């Protein structure tokens, strides 16, 4: 755990082309922007707005040793472990989801020490991204103190507040090398609108040294400029834009589709008995064998997709 010096952080930002330019590319081209060993932040939370298509592309591209961070990690964490893309995940909670019990793959990898799950409090994760977004080395906060969670993390420091004398915790800035974030729509330059829950994505985009956006739909810059107060992630932070319909499947994308629950159940079943062979079989069938993203969606199934979409758009029925 080391914090970059301020000049190093600024140098990385300065070196980026932050101008208003077309950044549209394919999943494969975007995957090439991620180097083995990079720190990688993942947008969304649990089974919501997970940039699954980008993760799919990183796994297919055979990336290695990414230090992954996310607010809360679900099935995508299992797959990052099982594929070897990551052996170190920094998050506050890691399992498929409460209704599916404790993730067998997470357990298998962490209990055997093949992989590390570095646990911070949820707010600490958020404030670490926020410090990174603000260009300061830390944020002060008032939780995690006194807990085992604090004891097992690296880099947080307690301080006596110079104003009040109170004990505060300073959590270190997180400036991931790359952030991958999925949005409902953005323009070719990367001006993104996000409907519904934004999780930690806005701070994450500002904190990262490189941002890859996947989007359900690319819209015109004119449409963005008609409602600039709806832009949640600005073009100047974005390095790649990839259009991927149903890019979170089998997770949800707010207002468009809910989780593909039957497929989530299938995943839980496949990994229930033997985590290693189950995850490998799942990766083969849904990650390595599909010809392309449409083929991946086909394997999940058209009926599931239509059902998830019907439930997803239902949030706007009122």
């Amino acid at each position, binding site marked *: 755990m080391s914090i970059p010096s301020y000049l190093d952080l600024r140098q990385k930002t300065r070196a980026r082309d932050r101008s208003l330019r077309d950044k549209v590319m394919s999943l494969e081209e975007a995957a090439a922007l991620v180097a083995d060993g990079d720190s990688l932040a993942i947008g969304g939370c649990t*089974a919501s707005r997970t940039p699954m298509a980008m993760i799919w592309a990183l796994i297919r591209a055979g990336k290695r040793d990414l230090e992954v961070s996310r607010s*809360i990690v679900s099935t995508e964490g299992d797959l990052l472990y099982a594929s070897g893309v990551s052996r170190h995940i920094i998050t506050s909670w890691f399992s498929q989801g409460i209704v599916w019990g404790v993730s067998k793959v*997470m*357990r298998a990898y962490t209990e055997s020490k093949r992989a590390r799950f570095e646990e911070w*409090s949820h*707010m600490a994760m*958020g404030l670490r991204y926020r410090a990174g977004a603000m260009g300061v080395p830390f944020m002060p906060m008032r939780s995690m103190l*006194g807990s085992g969670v604090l004891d097992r993390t690296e880099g947080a420091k307690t301080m006596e507040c110079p104003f009040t004398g109170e004990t*505060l915790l300073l959590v270190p800035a997180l400036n991931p090398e790359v952030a991958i974030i999925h949005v409902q729509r953005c323009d070719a330059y990367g001006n993104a609108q996000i409907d*519904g829950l934004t999780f930690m994505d806005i701070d994450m985009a500002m904190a990262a040294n490189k941002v890859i956006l996947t989007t359900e739909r690319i819209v015109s810059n004119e449409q963005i400029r008609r409602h600039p107060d709806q832009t949640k992630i600005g073009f100047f932070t974005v390095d790649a834009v990839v259009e991927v319909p149903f890019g979170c499947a089998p997770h949800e994308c707010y207002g468009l589709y809910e989780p593909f629950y039957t497929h989530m159940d299938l995943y839980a079943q496949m990994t229930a008995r033997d985590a290693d062979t189950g995850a490998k079989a799942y990766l083969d069938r849904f990650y390595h064998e599909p010809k392309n993203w449409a083929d991946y969606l086909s394997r999940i199934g058209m009926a599931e997709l239509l059902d998830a979409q019907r439930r997803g758009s239902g949030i706007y029925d009122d």
Partner: protein
Amino acid sequence: MTTERARISLSVAPAYTGSELLAVMSARLLKDGQTVFAGVGIPLLAAILAQKTHAPGLTILFEGGVIGPFVEAGKLPPSTNEQRCSRRANMLVSITEVLLLLQRGYVDVGFMGGAQIDRFGNLNSSFIGDAENPKIRLPGTGGGNDIASLADMIVAMKHEKRRFVEKVDFITSPGFLDGGDTRAQAGLPAGGMFRVVTDLGILGFEAESRAMTVLALHPGVSAADIKANTGFELPVPDDVEVTPAPTPNELAILRELDPEQLYTA
């Protein structure tokens, strides 16, 4: 985990599940006008039940960034981060912002479940066994640590000896730490354990020592029953109250909310 429970003799079979009992008893602790930071499962069910009975002005917060939602019967969310949590909410904010509401002091009650709790109300949801070589790696804190650090807490959980332990394997979410004023000394002057609701009774914490104590027993549960299912010395006052059983109305509301018994089986 499988359930292991010291035998309890009830004179008649109850007309409700243990989870339903937990939800009803927890709901009754919530007051109208309060702001409650709730986890999914029993806490969510209990909060909605309270809204639909004695606390219509209860405001529910979810850690996904949701303030004052309306959760539809039969469409319970699988976590606090899916759109189902946000339906007809008053406001959606980022995760960081909703957790900062706890820190700013806008939340009256934090309300969650727990895997393991100890005499001083410390909660473990990270490791069973030694953290360096755990028997089970659990999912971790999520917002639990933040909620328990910054709000008055209600915890709802099954009452089993291996869950109610002398000292938790790992403090994921702080209760009163080592009791007395050790919580404040650690930098947590606000919040702390208020109540633990189990399927056997309702527990509180002594004002000075901050050790867990029994406030009430559920119908048909004896002092011996609750002691037998607790892994530490748990005082039960002689004149301990008995909680009124769940009413048909409370149970009916719960069953409408969770018809598939996702959380109340």
